[in-house]
């Protein structure tokens, strides 16, 4: 039975094989669309969520939520473009077709840039996470301990197939429900008046705010890498991408909305992590300081988005060196991330500088480059021949 199945796989583009522990077959393992949905949202929702309301408010004042919606719409357009690109190569991921489109050398260069970018993002995630933990929960714990733990967890998830990663993400998404329930409790204390009058901050400020909003959505690049292993037709996948985006937008909007209406414009200038301060204020009969529980759940969200970047850089490196196995590439990425994490030091300013640079890189790698690749694909009319979009 097994042998005959493997025989099937050797023919090009038959993706009907069932999951099988075999290394060779691992790429053929398929994700369901539900898993695809959770992979996207878990990659997007991560470190940024704690400071998102603060950043938005800093840029666009009390109209920050409008900026967020605007950014969400822009990203939605971008997602369609990304979908168009991914659709052209139903059985290949980004690093596979970069080489075909840009030529071997240039393709390798861009792959390398992507991998390095992913490593830097992963490091940034680690830096922000460690800073937050040091401020809120464990002021005396050495940074390295927290960093190494996170990297180990990420490696453990990423070291097996993408299906396991998707399984873990799916089950961990239950925690998001707890977060929404927790935040909903705050709804009884909000003052809608803080949002009014709407739109007085001016167009320019709202546009500036869109920058802060757009950054929080970065992470959708994962679509380009995971798309080929998802079951379903292209239209169904687009629908999944859009619902995932819609969910993330709703989730962000919800958090921004409650922090804006809970604190008000004047107070919000002083609280860099408004969600935590908000929850800190509540005390229940059996438990107080629910912000600590919230932070614990947040760590899980951070782990998932960190793991995604680690996984993506691992794919990048292994395709760069044409490696058959992914584990060595993942370990190399993990060490590079560990190294980069200690680069900017622990000062507030250097961290901010580091994160600004990386978010600028986000525009390049999540926006400009994919569009550029798509245009090249259009111009050179490159497309995968004769393949229908698999089961």
């Amino acid at each position, binding site marked *: 039975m097994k042998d005959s199945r493997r025989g099937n796989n050797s023919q090009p583009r038959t993706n009907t094989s069932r999951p099988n522990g075999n290394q060779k077959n691992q790429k053929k393992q398929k994700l369901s669309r539900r898993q695809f949905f959770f992979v996207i949202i878990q990659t997007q929702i991560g470190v940024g969520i704690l400071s998102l309301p603060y950043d938005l408010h800093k840029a666009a004042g009390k109209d920050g939520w409008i900026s967020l919606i605007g950014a969400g719409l822009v990203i939605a357009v971008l997602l369609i473009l990304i979908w168009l690109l991914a659709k052209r190569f139903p059985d290949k991921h980004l690093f596979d077709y970069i080489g075909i489109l840009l030529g071997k050398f240039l393709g390798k260069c861009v792959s390398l840039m992507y991998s390095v970018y992913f490593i830097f993002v992963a490091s940034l995630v680690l830096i922000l996470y460690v800073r937050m933990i040091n401020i809120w929960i464990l002021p005396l714990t050495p940074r390295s301990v927290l960093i190494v733990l996170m990297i180990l967890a990420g490696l453990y998830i990423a070291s097996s197939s993408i299906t*396991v990663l998707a399984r873990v993400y799916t089950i961990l998404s239950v925690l998001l429900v707890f977060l929404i329930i927790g935040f909903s409790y705050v709804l009884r204390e909000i003052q809608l008046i803080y949002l009014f009058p709407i739109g007085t901050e001016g167009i320019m400020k709202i546009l500036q705010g869109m920058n802060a909003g757009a950054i929080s959505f970065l992470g959708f690049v994962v679509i380009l890498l995971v798309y080929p292993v998802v079951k379903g037709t292209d239209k169904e996948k687009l629908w999944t991408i859009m619902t995932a985006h819609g969910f993330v937008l709703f989730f962000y909007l919800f958090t921004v909305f409650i922090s804006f209406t809970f604190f008000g414009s004047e107070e919000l200038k002083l609280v860099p992590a408004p969600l935590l301060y908000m929850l800190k204020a509540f005390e229940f009969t059996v438990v107080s300081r629910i912000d600590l529980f919230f932070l614990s759940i947040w760590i899980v969200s951070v782990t998932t988005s960190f793991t995604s970047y680690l996984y993506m850089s691992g794919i990048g490196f292994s395709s760069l060196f044409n490696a058959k196995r992914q584990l060595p590439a993942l370990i190399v990425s993990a060490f590079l991330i560990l190294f980069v994490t200690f680069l900017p030091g622990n000062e507030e300013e250097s961290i901010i500088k580091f994160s600004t640079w990386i978010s600028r890189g986000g525009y390049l790698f999540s926006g400009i480059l994919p569009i550029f690749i798509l245009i090249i694909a259009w111009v050179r009319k490159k497309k995968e021949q004769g393949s229908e979009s698999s089961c």
Partner: protein
Amino acid sequence: MGFFRKIFQTGEGQQEKASGPSVKEPQQPSFLKLSANIDYLTKALKNSSDLKVRILNDGKAALLYYESLADQEKLQKKIFSQIESGRWEEVLDLPHGKHTENLEEALKTLLTGHAVYVQEGSTTLTQFEVTSQFNRSVEEPINERVVRGSHEGFVENVMININLIRKRLMHRDLTFQYFRVGKKTNTNIVLAFMDGIADPNIIEQVTNRIKSVTSDAIFSPGYMEEFIEDAPFSPFPQMMSTERPDRAVANLMDGRVLLMAEGSPTALVLPVTFFMFYQSPDDYNSRWISGTFIRLIRLMSFIIAIGLPAFYIAIIGFHYEVLPDDLILPVKGSINEIAYPPIVEALIMVIIVELIRESGIRLPQPIGQTIGIVGGLVIGDAVVQAGLISNLMVIVVALTAIASFVVPSYELSTTLRILTFPLIFFAGTLGFVGIVFGMLFILIHLCKLESFGTPYFAPVAPLRIKDLKDTFVRLPLFWLDKRPKDAKPVKSKAIGESREWTKIERQQKRK
């Protein structure tokens, strides 16, 4: 004789070499001469003292058997009654005797408790089944008691076990396959499955794995388990053992495979999922609401068993502020006088509980109870009085111990108690952050684990919403119309329309 012996010895040597790698059965044609036959057999069986050679009919015939294996009554009835009536020639051709001309085969049947009848001037050997059996009654297994439902249990005789299953599942698709495993012990391993429901891939996988075991000795399915499971380094059991025929049959009907062995009352069920360990036959025998309630309690016990001490340590050691104001004073009062940090306290207490459990488990019951009382009450009380351990910690550890025994499976209960330790360490060093990472590692491990190619943490990861009907809750049986997908059953429909009578009755009333 010496000449013969030489031939035998060289022949044997060659045969042994040949039988090494290949599975070819050794062959040795029998001789015309009676003494040669007897000689060969007694020599091959190393002149063991319990091998009886009865010379009959003035040395013209002989009967060989192990007196330790043979049942005297059966011998009398089957053979000697014939001999007594003087019909020597007919003994060879008695209908219940099995003929062979292969001495090696006769040797094997001798070892399973047959008697072999040999006659001068004939190469035919007749084997009579005279095995004596000592069977326990099929009483309820003490480690899997239920309140309602069947009180039968498997015994050490695999034939009786198969009988118990066949009587519950009278269908032609029920298939048993025998394997001989263990080069020296020659243990009979039985693979049972429902053909047409169980996934043929899984059966093939299991068969291959069983055949590849080349150990000298296999004593029980538990022994087999380590040879054929997917991840031997995982703390979680990847096969479920049961001594209950009803549980075994229910699992067969889910499309799972059963592994039994001669000499052990335990049947192994595979592939399994984590949540199967939290199901008990009781759930299905009681009303579904109470079944659901009890199952929820059991699953809650999982969280308590692995997480409660860690959670307590994290709060006491790191996150005092989580306690509401009213609770701070009592807690503080309880732990104020304690000399050790909470992690040491917890470790001491958990180990004491393990000591009490382990010492009580093998003792005769009255002494076991004494140990329980001395250990639990006296030590527990004295340790608090002496100010070594806070009474809150005693409560926490006692709760944890109780919770770990709620799970209906003994293997998983041990796993839970072992998993407590790493979590205690994580919580003692990093507080909540440590617990989060510890739990995360366990969860990832569960998601990664596979049992014979099927995901272990199904139906939660990968998520199958339809199968959740019988996971955290137990919905009414007529809603569980599809078999759980984790065992990849060939035929998924289990129940057709069974409550159509409600509609019919309603229509009749309307008329």
